[in-house]
């Protein structure tokens, strides 16, 4: 490598730092380039700084680039004449354009009136003049806008608002948001977690049921069933008589969505309007029923009337005594190509442990979840039909089958078992490393004591190791808890070594050393997931760094996007 290529850069450094030694400067450029991959043009400033700081004592002449706080107000009257960088929501009353000569240049500006308190009808409203120097094309009379970064102007006691060129205007009302009109049917897949909706669907099932009041004051007759369109199915509960037969197509207006555990359900009440609907092209019962079939990855806590085909890989009988009577429960592991979960049956099924694995079709079963793992409950033996062969490739070893799933799919689906996914490590939590757990309940203790009500006062704890991370694929994020064995393997250490390191460096420094190792790297994690209102959590029993080969990645990028 010839040194000549640095010559112009060295000259630049010397012109700034005349006392610097040429060879030293050249050595610095070589070091930046060879050891740090920083080309000379990028290293220039750093090197100049270094040689400058060698010579002169630093003068700290940081200019006042202090950011200003945005002042957010609801009413114009809250603003003072000196306020700048203001944020407010207003209705545009009028909007006029005008040509103005500003510094010899013809420029279009806009002016008019705005009115505050735009969302309340009949409330007291204040009007101000405004000037828009943008001018922003999205300011139109009648629209409600949010102005950010405007400044207040006072002239002869009259206040007005200047919408500067740097200000931002967001239109809040006026057709930018598609508003669902009442009476406008939506797809089942778009049903929100709660609220009133309108829907067109076909009745898949319907049966009379009774709900017993908890206080024992009697019972209410209800109708339960399922309704479907081409985007999905949903259970319903009608508090009013419901006479539409299975197979009929109906339009339901004003149904209330309630979410039981993780599963939404429609409630029909007195104000719900249900009428027959005619659409010759609407999918028939058979077709809709076939899509009612769920895979394990689609099971949600609280789901009812579920149809699925699974393989039972483990099955055992348990006995317990309730109210002085001996009762039996059969339970075990099941799997399909999308994952694994549990199943329990309250009646004996014709399955012997010697037959395993057995493929079964389940109909009308319900799903409960325990610690995020779905558990299919079979109430009656006739809900189970034993199949002679599996509908998928029979060679898959489901018991140890790990399904690779993209992080986005993980986060947007129900809790699953036996998955593997990957993402960039974007956070290493401060409580990673060695933790103490209560010996009774396994909860993490604080200051040596368990905070759980059942174990208060108990101070016995046990040492454990874990890593708490966040991984990210630029679309979604998930928390990751890595268990002891996987964590030690990933960090290439032992529990004793880790304990010693923490003792020597302190917890904070140790966490920083984990960051030094993991931050920004691609991590593959395997285990199970718990998806709930808190977001997605992956409980990992396996973790490894992957995809670190920059040259390979670069080649892939070139090939994919034609960058040459």
């Amino acid at each position, binding site marked *: 490598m010839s040194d000549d*290529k640095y010559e112009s850069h060295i000259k630049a450094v010397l012109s*700034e730092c005349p006392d610097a030694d040429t060879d030293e400067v050249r050595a*610095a450029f070589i070091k930046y380039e060879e050891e*740090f*991959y*920083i*080309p*000379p*043009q990028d*290293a220039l400033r*750093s090197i100049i*700084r*270094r040689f400058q*700081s060698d010579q002169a004592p630093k003068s*700290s002449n*940081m200019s006042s*680039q202090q*950011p*200003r706080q945005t002042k957010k107000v609801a009413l114009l009257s809250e603003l003072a004449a000196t306020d700048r960088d203001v*944020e407010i929501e207003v209705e545009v009353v009028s909007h006029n354009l005008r040509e103005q000569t*500003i*510094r010899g240049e013809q420029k279009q500006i806009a002016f008019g009136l705005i009115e505050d308190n735009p969302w309340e009808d009949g409330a007291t409203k204040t009007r101000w003049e405004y000037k828009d120097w943008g001018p922003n094309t999205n300011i139109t009379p009648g629209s409600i806008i*949010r102005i*950010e*970064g405007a400044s207040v102007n006072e002239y002869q006691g009259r206040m007005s608002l200047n919408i*500067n*060129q*740097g200000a*931002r205007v967001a239109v809040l009302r006026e057709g930018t948001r*598609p508003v669902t009109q009442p009476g406008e049917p939506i797809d089942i897949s778009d*049903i*929100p977690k709660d609220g009133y909706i309108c829907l067109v669907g076909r009745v898949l099932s319907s049966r009379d049921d009774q709900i017993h009041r908890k206080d024992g004051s009697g019972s209410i007759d209800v109708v339960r069933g399922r309704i479907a369109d081409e985007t999905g199915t949903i259970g319903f509960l009608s508090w009013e008589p419901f006479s539409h037969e299975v197979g009929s197509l109906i339009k339901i207006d004003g149904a209330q969505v309630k979410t039981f555990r993780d599963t939404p359900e429609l409630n029909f009440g007195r104000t719900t309007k249900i009428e027959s609907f005619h659409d010759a092209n609407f999918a028939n019962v058979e077709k809709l029923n076939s899509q009612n079939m769920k895979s394990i990855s689609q099971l949600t806590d609280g789901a009812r009337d579920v149809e699925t085909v699974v393989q039972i890989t483990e099955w055992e009988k348990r006995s317990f005594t309730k109210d002085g009577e001996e009762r039996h429960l059969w339970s075990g592991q099941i799997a399909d190509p999308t994952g694994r979960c549990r199943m329990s049956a309250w009646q004996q099924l014709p399955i012997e442990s010697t037959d395993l694995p057995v493929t079964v079709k389940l109909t009308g079963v319900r799903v409960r979840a325990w610690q995020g793992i779905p558990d299919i409950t079979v109430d009656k033996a006739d809900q189970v039909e034993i199949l002679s062969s599996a509908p998928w490739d029979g060679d898959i070893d489901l018991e140890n089958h790990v399904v690779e799933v993209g992080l986005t799919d993980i986060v*947007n689906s129900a809790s699953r078992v036996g998955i593997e996914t990957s993402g960039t490590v*974007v956070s*290493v939590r401060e409580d990673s490393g060695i933790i103490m757990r209560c010996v009774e309940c396994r909860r993490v203790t604080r200051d040596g004591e368990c905070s759980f009500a059942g174990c208060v006062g108990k101070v016995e704890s046990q040492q454990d190791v874990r890593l708490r991370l*966040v991984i*990210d694929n*630029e679309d979604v*994020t998930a928390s990751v808890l890595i268990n002891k064995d996987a964590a030690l393997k990933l960090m290439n250490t032992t529990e004793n070594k880790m304990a010693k390191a923490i003792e020597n460096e302190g917890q*904070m420094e140790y*966490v*920083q050393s984990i*960051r*030094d190792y993991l*931050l*920004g*790297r*691609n991590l593959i994690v395997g285990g199970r997931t718990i998806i709930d*209102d808190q*977001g997605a959590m992956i409980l990992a029993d396996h973790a490894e760094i992957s*995809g*670190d080969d*920059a*040259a390979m*990645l*670069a080649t892939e*990028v070139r090939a*994919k*996007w034609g*960058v040459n």
Partner: protein
Amino acid sequence: MQPARSIKRQPALHMFASEYGESTLSEKGSGEFDPSFVVTKIGSRVNRVVVAGLLERIEGRDVANGSVIYQGQLRDPSGINYFSVGDYVSDSVKDLTIQLSARLESGEPILILMIAKTRLYQTDEGAIYTSLRPEEMCVIDTQRYASWLAKTSQSLMERMSTYLSSLDYDSNVESMAKSDLSEQQVLGLVASRNHYGDVDLEHYRLNVMQALDIAEGRLEAASKPAPQRQLVEETEVKDKEVEATDDLESVILDIITKLDQGDGVEFETILINAEARGFQRSVAEEKLEELSDNGTVHEPAFGWFRLV
């Protein structure tokens, strides 16, 4: 089924300094806990970034309440990211900042990777700057820097392709709803196209090419000036210097035009802006004087400049 509206952690985008630093649009929801975003020219709505590069400067500055704010800059092949570490960061980030500051003082080159929150701010004169607030950071080696360059190139190409595909639609929500773009993408793309107008993507492609060269260890290729200039390779070095100063002149004039709200633009503001565009302060100062002497700009009040 739609998920409940809960506060979700915002994803982090791998981003080069050029894409982030050119942003002048931010977005904040009206709710108290709504996340804020910076919207880049190609419509990426970004709340959090994964950035890396050479730590070029990190300096503490005393502020009024007795605490110290550290300000620094991180250089990647496309430009510089500015970040500040204030009182609100975790102890470990603060500790690391102080350590880094000392190490940098000794002249040691340091490569950094950080996960940071994005932020735009505006000076009194109306100039808009981007800045980063590190959440977690670490010192990385060349291999990881190379991986970051490749990953970021991939991510930028992806976003550019999304942006280009959006150009088939009008820049409003209704029109883009017909495309395959996600709701989040549409929000960013509509906002950016309405704010920035037409955007030239060529320099982003050049950034990617250079980053990939470095990632592949081909420093020779990456050290060359950007390929577009290779076309005029015969041009003498002298010409280039002239070009560079011309460039500075137009930059200064541009700064004054953009920032002048009627009273002219302050001396310091012009220099900070010129510096932010990669010119040396002393050179910019000289140029400004020259422009003032030859009558291109005038000084209506001391230290305030306007175009004639």
